[in-house]
């Protein structure tokens, strides 16, 4: 289990930020992502491993609509 935006979320071996985005179908083009408080650059989504128990925040910084 990980914390995904403050909610419980299933974890699996080999999970990366990119695979998590794909699993969640997060297609909005602007995402601000932190893992345990550390900001992750877009080019590192594929090589950033998510560990069991991590606190992941994937923020869609839009309040415009």
């Amino acid at each position, binding site marked *: 289990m990980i914390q995904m*935006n403050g909610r419980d979320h299933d974890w699996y071996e080999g999970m990366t930020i990119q695979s998590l985005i794909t699993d969640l179908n*997060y*297609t*909005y*083009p602007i995402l601000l992502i932190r893992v345990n408080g550390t900001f992750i650059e877009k080019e590192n989504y594929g090589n950033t491993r998510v560990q069991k128990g991590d606190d992941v925040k994937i923020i*869609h910084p*839009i*309040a*415009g*609509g």
Partner: protein
Amino acid sequence: MSVVIAKERVDEMKSSRRVLKTLEYTPTKVQKGYTDKTLYINLTDNQVEFKDIPAVVKEKFIGGKGYGLWHLWKGVNADTKWNDPENEIVISPGPIAGITQYPGAGKSLVVSISPITGTVIDSNVGGHFGPLMKFSGFDALEIQGKAEKDVVVFIDGNKGTISIEEAPVETVDSHILAEELTEMYADDEEDKRHISVVSSGQAAEHSYIGLLNFSFYDKRKKAQRLKQAGRGGIGTVFRDKKIKALIVKYKGVKGDSNAPVDVEKIKQVGMKLHKEVHDFDDEQCQMRQVGTANLFETMSDYDLLPVNNFQYGSHKDAAKTGGRAALKKVLQQDEPDGCWFGCSMSCAKSATAYELQTGPYKGQKVVVDGPEYETIAGVGSNCGIFDIDYVLECNFYCDTYGVDTISFGTLTAFAMECFERGVIDKEVTQGLELTFGNKEAAMELLHQMARGDGFGVIAGKGVREMRKLFVREYGADENLLLDIGMESKGLEYSQYVSKESLAQQGGYALTNKGPQHDEAWLIFMDMVNNQIPSFDDKAEALHYFPMFRTWFGLQGLCKLPWNDVEPISNRSVEGPEAAKVPEHVQNYVDLYNAVTGNNIDKQEMILQSERVYNFQKVFNIRLGVVGIEGDRAPYRSMGPVTKEEFLSREDRYDKQMKENIGIDPEGKSLEEKMKITRDFRESQFAQLRDTVYKRRGWTVEGIPKVEHLQNIGMDLPEVLEVVQPYFK
């Protein structure tokens, strides 16, 4: 491809004109974003007056929507209806409007009493009319009274003349009328870009959802493009006053026409944002390529796209018909396309040389402005129609006929669901097979609105009036129609599914004018980001964002450059603050100070809005929209109304029942589960409403407290007079 107006046609229009009033004036020069003058016109007796705007009004109402509300308040009384002569249409651009160095700075705000809500409506619109009117000497145009016959009002800001003229032969529909009047008033081709026309269309005469088109001349396409003040039926008021058009002509727009105190600061802030748009837009929202329509595919991915009258939130054909790739095939993208000078975001897209397939203009090749996200979702997916050509056709006719695509989409979707559920039949619709996906029937409904015949006249009165009629005349189940009729205060919902975002349910219903998302759009903050989990968090957001976004309407600004491009600095902003985009908020504070010479900060900015927001709330109370019933939301905005809706997301609702409500769904019947879900969601909404009212300084009945009005400086005697009876 533009409509070509022959010289003979111009001669015919000129020879049929009858001048009712003409006068000369000396245009007041703009100083620090203001002229401090209002142009007042009464069409009943052709009175024209130049009013000074008092300093206290400038301080408390700022401009734009604030000026509109203040003028309207003075012009009407508690019993005024939308079609009474004393109702007004007020147009005001606001102090920042007219600068050319920062994107999105040419907006006008239009205020009136709405035919569809019976209370105050405001609409934010692009096009050149507002800034050109300000440079012609006026911060606001206040129109009252009713003409006997169709008239136009012409303001020449260079010559300093105003005229009211009977205009019997001009076309009513906007795509032709804007071209006719431009041809008539322009000295030559170059002069056309100095003209802006406000107009409506035939359907505004037969419906309550009429809009106003504000034009801007596109030199490249050699056509008047149209931007819409869409919401709430102001076009219906316009045609009821027998106004065919307002025309302003002003030559001489320059970078310093707004006479700001510190133009260098404005340039500096503007350059920063232009660079962000240049560097990031292609990889972020692609506003320059497809405009607001970029959201269509995304909304479907997040289960937020309204499908079949807001029953469902996604559709397999969404990407194919309204996705970015599909849009790029039909939209012209190879040139800058902004609705005011200097807007590098350039989201005002168009499809050119679109050949119309139906209606009175069938066969014409026309420029279709848009489509915006709201239009594709409203007339498309929400009606079960996934066909981009239909969207373009419907978009064009809505604009030229002068009806709001959002209301047209939502009311058509409602009629379709009523038809499919047997609430109405072909006898009621007078032959229209109004099933979801039937684009031919939907187009015919729109043409009927324009002609004023058939079921179009009934539908054109909006969801609320349709509901009442179906219950009264056809024995419909009122509770069902209250649940599925997507309106609040009489205004049709804009195009987002709010079922899974309690905050957005409030963002739609706990509003001044009705469910238009321009007060607060909190779906991602709430549902996806989970940044505002508690009632207090949501209430804080439902205080901040409506106040912040009201500010755009005070200044004559577009909100899109605020958060449709993300600055690098936002990466270091954590928590809900990121949604505010602090760097861009500071840009706006800097712009305001640089234009006006005042010295506000972010807190004062919110206070400016809070005064006007509360004034509008009190205005609603004055007009009889009082208490929690005024903020009623249809259950479909909160949760699944029907069995099929529940079953389509059964796993989600079962999980929520277990985790959020604490009840095990195992062994429960479908009806039991639906009731448990509904009771919970309705109680959540009620609790949210109470918390929001408290945060806004209102009573549990939604009345602004006297002490609160005093604290924020909106304690004008006439305001207190309205609320004080509720505290005796």
